């Protein structure tokens, strides 16, 4: 019975850790994607990045999935 409880406990802890890791990874990715790079010290880089991020590509497609 004790062994059983230990195994169940281990499973729960593993699932909890997996969940936390996933959240952390997602948050880190989100930060990288969307936060402007505040560490850019070079003025030229800041301005160049602004031009790039404000340009919309003519071939850009909103992905609404596929029907086939």
């Amino acid at each position, binding site marked *: 019975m004790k062994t059983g409880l230990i195994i169940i406990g281990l499973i729960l802890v593993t699932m909890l850790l997996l969940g936390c890791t996933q959240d952390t990874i997602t948050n880190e*990715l989100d930060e990288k994607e969307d936060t402007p790079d505040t560490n850019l010290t070079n003025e030229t880089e800041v*301005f160049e990045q602004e031009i790039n991020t404000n340009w919309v590509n003519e071939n850009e497609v909103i992905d609404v999935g596929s029907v086939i």
Partner: protein
Amino acid sequence: MANKLIAMVLGLLILTTMPLVLAEENEGIIIDSNITPIDEKEAKLILSPLGAEVRMIQLEKSITRNVLSGEVVLNTLKTNHPDYDLIESEKTLNTLEMLLEEVKNTNTQEDKNVLVQTFVELKKEARTLSTQFKTQTKGFIDSNDRTQIMLKIKEIDSNYLTEIKNKAQKRIREYNALRVKQHLEALGENEDSLIEDINRGVANLTQTREKLMEKFGELNDANKKQIATKTRNEGIQKTIENKKIMEQTKPELAQKIMNKIQTRTNDMNNWMQQKGIQLPNTSSNRLNRIEEAISNTHGVNSNKDTQPNGGGKQ
């Protein structure tokens, strides 16, 4: 003892996974309510009026393509397998067509908070319905059907979507031209020929960037620093504003999408009556309907004072 243990572990697994399954699946519909970094990037453009028009017409283009492709799938299946029951997939395609009408009628002058939420909900609903249609028809399509369908979809791209593609392209060029005009103004410059080239699709990003960077390089260090600081601060403010709106969009998104689909399903009989169509032949005039709808200018509610030369603030 071993059996008890296995039963307990299985029970535990079921208990932990069931809520996830129930949250995602409702009446057989798998709702796509996951907000991705791409959604956030797309929504950020909506913070400006012309950007909102760009996103709505891009969304209209993508959904139009799916409705037309769905129509091809149904027509091919009806021709090749007249005995198949396709009523459920017809209903799903009708719902997607109803959604397309809502996208076309969205007022892009609405408050940006409302517009961002509307855009995300419409996009996610379109994804949900497209996936549902795909799931409903997948089992019916054999390799011969698939080959025919793919060929017809290529025709659709050239015959039906050219007009809407051009409209989207025009709006994107206007948006890019406006942004570049604002960059030039920040630099104290005025380059009408460049703006004209962007509007005509002659100047691409590389050429535009080169010109702007050239102008930027001519500034003294103090001015460069001032413009870079202002640019960075505005960028950060915009990102924060966008994140805030997206956070407001997330709660109960799946439920909101489910409710919208439910409402459309309830309204379908009225909608079909208005169009003069009856199941199972709802598709007979779909191509004509879509073609006619594309010809009608998008954005009857669009913001006219946001033209590149209209001085609208983005």
